[in-house]
């Protein structure tokens, strides 16, 4: 597809806001139209058309994340019913790879945004904390593919993880202290060892030239 034509104004505005280049936006727009079957918005049912997504154990959470209003940078809470292309791009922008020309502050902000996205995936009741039940839910989903693991072992793994998190974040706790749940700051602490920037991006968005043969 040619890139020599003039870029419309909305495209440029989108590019500025989300940080994508115009080729990437065009590519994503084509994909959006395919998913929405040429409608202007996407609903949850449109994600059922993707065959590979069936095998993904956290499929529900991923689709949910697209409609989560906190990820869409809206002030309100809860779930949206349908999203338009701009929202689609907003979600995709969480998966942009880091660029060479980012400075420390930008990098830090970028990192926080990605981690916030992940945090929202765990925290399904939107109360700002990952409780034991939510964590258990996540672990059970991750282990759902394996038939000979019982629910109890999934639970005990989640419990163990929670205790570990407690020990990292709060240190030694007294016998009466209750660990309510993992807050976002605790979450950040847990992620300090792992460099999320290199992991959480979709490589295909690195396209600079016009991609013809994949």
């Amino acid at each position, binding site marked *: 597809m040619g890139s020599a034509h003039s870029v419309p104004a909305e495209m440029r505005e989108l590019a500025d806001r989300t940080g994508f280049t115009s080729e990437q936006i065009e590519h994503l727009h084509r*994909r959006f139209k395919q998913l929405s079957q040429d409608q202007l918005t996407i609903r949850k049912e449109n994600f059922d058309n*993707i065959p*590979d*997504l069936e*095998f*993904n*154990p*956290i*499929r529900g959470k*991923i689709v949910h994340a697209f409609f989560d209003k906190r990820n869409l940078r809206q002030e309100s809470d809860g779930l949206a019913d349908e999203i338009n292309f701009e929202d689609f791009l907003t979600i995709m922008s969480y*998966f942009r790879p880091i660029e060479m020309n980012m400075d420390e502050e930008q990098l830090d902000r970028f990192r926080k945004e990605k981690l916030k996205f*992940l945090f929202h*995936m765990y925290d399904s009741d939107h109360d700002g904390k990952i409780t*034991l*039940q939510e964590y258990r839910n*996540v*672990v059970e989903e*991750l*282990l759902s*593919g*394996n*038939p*000979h*693991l*019982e*629910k*109890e*072992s999934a*639970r*005990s*793994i989640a*419990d*163990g*993880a929670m*205790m*570990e998190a407690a020990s*990292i974040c709060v240190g030694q*706790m007294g016998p*009466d*202290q*209750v*660990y*309510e749940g993992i807050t976002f700051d605790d979450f950040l602490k*847990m992620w300090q060892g*792992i*460099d*999320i920037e290199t*992991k*959480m*991006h*979709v*490589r*295909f968005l*690195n*396209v600079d*030239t016009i*991609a*013809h*043969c*994949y």
Partner: protein
Amino acid sequence: MCYICNKIVAAADMGSATLAHAKLLNWLLLLSSLVCCSAAAYVDEPNLSNSFLPHYEPHQGGAVGSSQDTRLHVFTVDYGYVQIPYEVTLWILLASLAKIGFHLYHRLPRLMPESCILIVIGALVGAIIFVSDHKSPPVMNSSIYFLYLLPPIILEEGYFMPTRPFFENFGSILWWSLLGSLLNSFGIGLSLYGICQIEAFGLTDLDLLQNLLFGSMISAVDPVAALVVFEEASVNEQLYMMIFGESLLNDGITVVLYNIFIAFIQMHRYEEIESIDVFAGFARFFVVGLGGVFFGIVFGFVSAFMTRFTHNVSTIEPLLVFMFSYLAYLSAETLYISGILAMTSCAVTMKKYVEENVSQNSYTTIKYFMKMLSSVSETLIFVFMGVSTVGKNHEWNWAFICFTLLFCLIWRTLSVFALFYISNKFRTYPFTFKDQLIISYSGLRGASSFSLVFLLPVNLFPRKKLFITATLAVIYFTVFIQGVTIGPLVKYLDVKKTNKKESINEEIHVRLMDHLKAGIEDICGHWSHYQLRDKFKKIDNKYLKKILIREHQPKSSIVSLYKKMEIKLAIEMAESSMKLSETPTASSQNSRNRHVRRLSPAEMKSLRDVLAHNLYQVRQRVSYNRHNLPTNTSEKQAQEILIRRQHSLRQSYRKGNSLPWVNTTEVRYLSLPQGPSQRTRQKARHVTFTGNGHALLCILLQQ
């Protein structure tokens, strides 16, 4: 409690190890008995036949025509009559036994490619033949190789090729195999020619064309052998496809080059070759390649059409498949077009439609028979190779051999980095330095380069023995040394890049992110060019399927409907039971959180191990193994769910409850493990976690 679990694991491991050792011992005894038997056969035979035709001898002993004894012989031995088939069968059996033994000890296949064991068997047979001074070593000539031994291998590769990833990466694969082979052949040939010019090595009688020919033969790689080792290290799918596609196309390209160079050499004098001939060579290269593909596609469609009408004669369906592919190969060879590419494209075209049309049994038969045939061919080639190793037709020249090895490695690395640098610019998923390193290291040589060099006409190549020795040296080096070290190399490269997971939390988070990434990639659709694929699918559905595929059979749809209903029911039961079991625990959650105790490191480690081994694999992996068939996962899943459901029904009848999963702790899954990882299966068999969970809860509640 985890300590006990660890003990059980250790004991079981020891038990299984001794069991494996016992089996290994059994196999060794059997093998040695077979070897002795074959050795006896070699020592015994009186007459030797040089041809492959059985020659008839009167069986009635000395009763007719002999003047020495006029008695009727009750017991006579006539080995010469069955010698050739007997020996061939014996070799194949030997190799099969070796394969059994190879796989019994489950760690071996992950350490080294299976070609290693085949070469060892070949060398063993060769040693026996040499030692027993067998006067007629088995002969492989050009027609036998090209007409009988090569087609099964090619057919099997083409048929089992995973089409979707192949076509998604088709551009890169074509670019890499085509230019890679050309670059390697010419590079190695020219460098060796340069070396030959040096007087001190005594190689000046090798002219340019011979060196170029040698270069083209030695650049025929067989990286499929390394693929099994790759799977263990969970190499990404793109890399896998590149290597697979390369091996597929590489065979065809090298044979075409080989034929072109031989034609050049047969034009006698070097000076007669003008530039027009070189251009003709290039043009011929393309004609041969593309013509082969076209031929194959035509034959593929014809055979698919034929299978539409075979539902009353389903026993000839495998025959159709094999005969048509073979016919494609032979017809292409008649016209001097690449039969290999023809057969490959025939298999690829045919597969989709044939699988819809043939009966289930025919389908299974085709798969197994194909694997069997290709296995037999490969075994025979390796036996010939082994026999040539231990023999008298060698000429060792240090300079030539060492430089050949060196140039093979250098040129492969150079071509990988150069070509991938260019193709990365056009890919959405560029190959990293690590990927390229792995690709360049996986250039194992195998049966094809040996066969090509063995079949050189001696009159044109007075120094054929030198070539054979050099090729054998390269094959041994690459298969044994590179093949064994490639596994550790891949693991080393992987481990270096990723962080060591020290905690359960990290494991969970990183795995979640992998799944998330895969999900987003699927949503973005970067795995395929959707437009092209959709267009092809439309044409396919509108025209091709109507012509080539039989009408839908009602019998199979009932079965699939039943399966679908079962799956739906099982999922509903799972969901309802999860909701039920959540409510009683929510109330005690607060009290549970209050009494926290730090888990000991051993417990953490065991929990982490369970997690690491049992987390759902990120994507259905593409997996190709030349020597084995992949398990049918969807069938197993359906089986799985049926078993689970029956078990839960039984439970509910026993307890009189309508919802069978109220007591979740007592439900056990007596089921087959899912997924190909053997390690998971072994670990899971020995580690049980109900006790652990209970104990953990008790500790938490301090009771």
